[in-house]
């Protein structure tokens, strides 16, 4: 431990988390109430399969063999998972990896827009609030931010659905792409995609409330700092001061918040995509729950966890690029 840098330790930690998740998913298949294997067998038998054939299929789909000793099965499962073999979906009858790979881009599309727009709005609003601290704008925006921060996103989603879709008919109530347009790189198709993604993205904007309050606090702190006073006395332009001094320093702590919120949004996408009937990873998983499609559930579970672990790993590892003070050297190194 002594000679290992914290980055190596951090990486080991991330790998440990991934391993733990895979192990957990393995345990869950075997321990889940209702017995996942039994449930699948029953289903296949109901479809008129012979028990032997059903059993064969289950083993294949779950990529496990109940007759093997548990440790052998476990090692095989872990190895399969690490090689990207997450088994075959019971319901779709396709490899889980293919299903996830097809759904993931849609969810990432909505998520990245949600995160980008909410942080953009949050940072801008927070900066304005800090600049006019105590003024009408500050009070107004703070109330807005508190409201946004306290509404669950699915409530906003339903409200948007009721008004923007059913009542006024501005946006579609579900789906992810326009019907009747050929998928490809053409303007109609891209516009259709954006059109369908609008309401899901808007519902996720509740995150901007918390972000703006954070930004407001950070900016006020920076505005009161000594280096800002010195910068003003040095006669720097307002533009330099607001971008290079205030914004740069106030945004720094938001960086970690941003990457952490990726994880939260992944979790939220299950409900969100269900509400908007948006065929992404979230909806896929939701259906998997309903259909007791265990391989798909586990695959999605593992995928989301790994995505969050990677996001946090990136946040930790790159923070020293964003903030030079977070690098290894302490202030006494010279």
């Amino acid at each position, binding site marked *: 431990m002594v000679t290992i840098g914290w980055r190596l330790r951090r990486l080991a930690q991330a790998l440990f988390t991934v391993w733990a998740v895979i192990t957990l998913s393995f345990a869950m298949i075997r321990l889940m109430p209702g017995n996942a294997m039994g449930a699948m067998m029953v289903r296949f038998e109901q479809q008129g399969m012979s028990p032997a054939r059903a059993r064969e299929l289950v083993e294949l789909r779950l990529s496990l063999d109940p007759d093997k000793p548990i440790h052998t099965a476990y090692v095989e499962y872990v190895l399969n998972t690490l090689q990207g073999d997450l088994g075959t979906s019971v319901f779709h009858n396709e490899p889980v990896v293919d299903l996830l790979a097809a759904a993931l881009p849609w969810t990432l599309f909505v998520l990245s827009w949600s995160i980008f727009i909410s942080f953009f709005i949050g940072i801008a609003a927070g900066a304005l609030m800090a600049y006019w601290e105590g003024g009408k704008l500050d009070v107004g925006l703070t109330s807005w931010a508190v409201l946004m921060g306290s509404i669950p996103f699915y409530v906003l989603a339903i409200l948007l659905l009721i008004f923007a879709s059913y009542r006024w008919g501005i946006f579609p109530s579900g789906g992810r792409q326009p019907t009747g347009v050929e998928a490809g790189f053409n303007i109609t198709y891209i516009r259709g995609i954006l059109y369908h993604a609008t309401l899901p993205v808007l519902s996720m904007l509740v995150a901007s409330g918390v972000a703006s309050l954070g930004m407001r606090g950070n900016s006020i702190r920076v505005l009161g700092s000594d*280096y800002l006073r010195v910068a003003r006395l040095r006669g720097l332009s307002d533009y330099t001061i607001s971008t290079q001094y205030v914004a740069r320093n106030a945004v720094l702590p938001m960086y970690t918040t941003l990457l952490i919120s990726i994880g939260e949004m992944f979790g939220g996408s299950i409900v969100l995509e269900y509400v908007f009937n948006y065929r992404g990873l979230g909806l896929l998983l939701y259906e998997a729950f309903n259909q007791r499609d265990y391989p798909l559930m586990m695959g999605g579970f593992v995928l989301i966890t790994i995505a969050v672990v990677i996001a946090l790993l990136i946040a930790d590892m790159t923070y020293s690029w964003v903030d030079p003070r977070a690098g290894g050297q302490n202030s006494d190194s010279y």
Partner: protein
Amino acid sequence: MTTSQSTSLDDPTAADPVVEIRNATVRFGMERGESRVLDDVSLDLERNEIFGVVGESGSGKSMLASAMLDAVVEPGILDGSITYRPEAGDPIDVLGLTTNELRTFRWEEIAMVFQGAMSSFNPVRKIDTHFVETLSAHDYDVDEGMERARGLISDLYMDPERVLDSYPHELSGGMKQRTLIALSLILEPDVLVMDEPTAALDLLMQRSIVSLIEEIKEEYDLTILFITHDLPLVADLADRIAVMYAFEFVELGPTEEILQHASHPYTRLLLKSTPNLASPIEAMRPIEGSAPDPVNVPSGCSFHLRCPLADEQCVEVDPEAYSVSDSSVSVTGSDSDSDLSPDSDATSIPNSDAGDHVANCHYWEDAPETIPMTEEWDVEGIDAIDSAPGPSRTADPLVSMEDVEVHFETEGSFLDFFSEPDTVQAVDGISLDIYENDVVVLVGESGCGKTTFGKTAVGLQEPTDGAVKYRGQDIWDLKRSGGDGTMSFDTVRRALQIVHQDPGSALNAHRRVGTSLEVPLKRWNPELDGNDRKSRIVSLLEHVGMSPAEDYIDRYPHQLSGGEQQRVALIRAMLMNPDLILADEPVSALDVSLRVEMMDLMIELQEQFDTSYLFVSHDLSNARYIAEKTGGRIGVVYLGELVEIGRPEEIIHDPQHPYTQALRWATPEPDFEGGGMGGESPIREIDVPDPTDPPSGCRYHTRCPEAREVCTREHPEPNEASAAAYHEAACFRTDDHHEYWNSPSITDGGD
């Protein structure tokens, strides 16, 4: 109040003020009423002088600095007039400038250096960006300017390339402060306002920077307004000094006049209250009372509540500026521009006759008699000081450290997974015994490991090697084994306590004083009920001078002054009935005039509670005060090693290690006798070497003026340094027969 300036026409400097401040007043509207934080101050700053402004915290001295640049923070309102007279061109009315003109004026004509150099740089941008953006904001030629920046940085004894390519946090405090000075001079201003530019630094760095300021002033043809709370520090530097009290000047005059013939009672009391090395400790007295609130400044003379001379007249009539110069006691002349008396140091103070000596006191003539500076003053006696006898150091030690090492590791840079991390040898092989009722004061520069060593001594930091023993038991073994029945780690924890440097953050801000103090009692004296606890706390608070104690019990820490907070922190430690208290710079956060009082209190509590102290301080005069009063020892720490230890007599008057001598040099002394004390700096390098890569041999050899070739190879061990008891030093020079004496010197030419 106005300060009259000499009107004599044949004095060239007096007729050439660079800044004229007239009736400058800064007001803040507050809920409790209007607060005046600068009260009708007038001042002529002569071209090319160094003008010192001395005042305690909350005396309005920083406001004066802000006013010079018309940079008073909102909602403060600045009235009066400030005129800047450039060498060529028309005078500028600073307060009449438009925002854009002001933006040009600041930094190009008058620049400023702040106290908070640590936080004066944008933490996410490199140092060179700060220079470049300043140059381009003022439409200066960047290449030419950066050339000048490099020159400035090397004039301040730093490596320009390395400094410019660093992020602010990569520089040490002293380097940051010097870089800030360079940044303030980048646009070649005529006037430099320095607001406590050295307050956050340790003494050696302070002294080094003060000497640099003199050089810089000559080279760049500057006028400097130097603001500080530390009279002895500025005395060595300034041509004239003004003393501020309650938001106005109370005394102003040439430096030597102020030092030798201080005529305002406040100045005299301030001089007496400042811990120093020269005066006998009995002569150091705190000033009674506290500085007034800006909303409610006393009528008449603002000092009358604390002044031993005050009478009716002082309460009713605000004193004018009385001229002291025609006093018969003065040796430096009269209203006329007489020559300097022969015994003054005329060369070091070129402008000493630039202004008259004035004091705002009705009884300035009586002040010297009522408040004598030199009552028991006896130059011979100083060297013959004799500290208290101190404890017997024959019994078993209370805490004993054997060859203690603490090494920290620093991390490598990004994606630097496998390289060997650097090791900071914060403490490297120190042995020290602390006895019952003993006092040891550790002195040294910042980053030399004295605090880490202190924390190791009280069991807050586990040593990486060596042993820390409490009454013969290794405390870390004890912690691991859980105790052997006779003693547990809990006992040790209770017996060894700490008082921090910053009392404000050491107390829980959301707990009332009474609640904070109750915690240790509840934990360690469960037999006491609520009333017993309360009466014990009340009596202790009364004892340390916080009365009515019932009132203080219900206060929160922010409702206390710094001195009061430190007292509460001290009581809290004392309530544990500890055997040893680590006091980490306990007085450096306090105003100079309060330090003696606080130290007296600590010494008194030591006797009462029967404890030992381990003090950590960067200030040799504080160290001397405490060690001398208690009969303790002073230990000098350099780069993780104890280089010299001894009783204050030896450390102050017969220092053997060159590093101790440097610290001695760095300690400013009020110079009542006239004649400079300064002298050449005894260190060859201003900055402490990188602790991750300490120099070979004797660690001090890179800065030592006496270093010889052998010092670079061989490591000196602690040795008996003189005939005096307990005096040890780790220097070859203490051994008359060492090969050092035949070794060639490395100080000249080789560096």
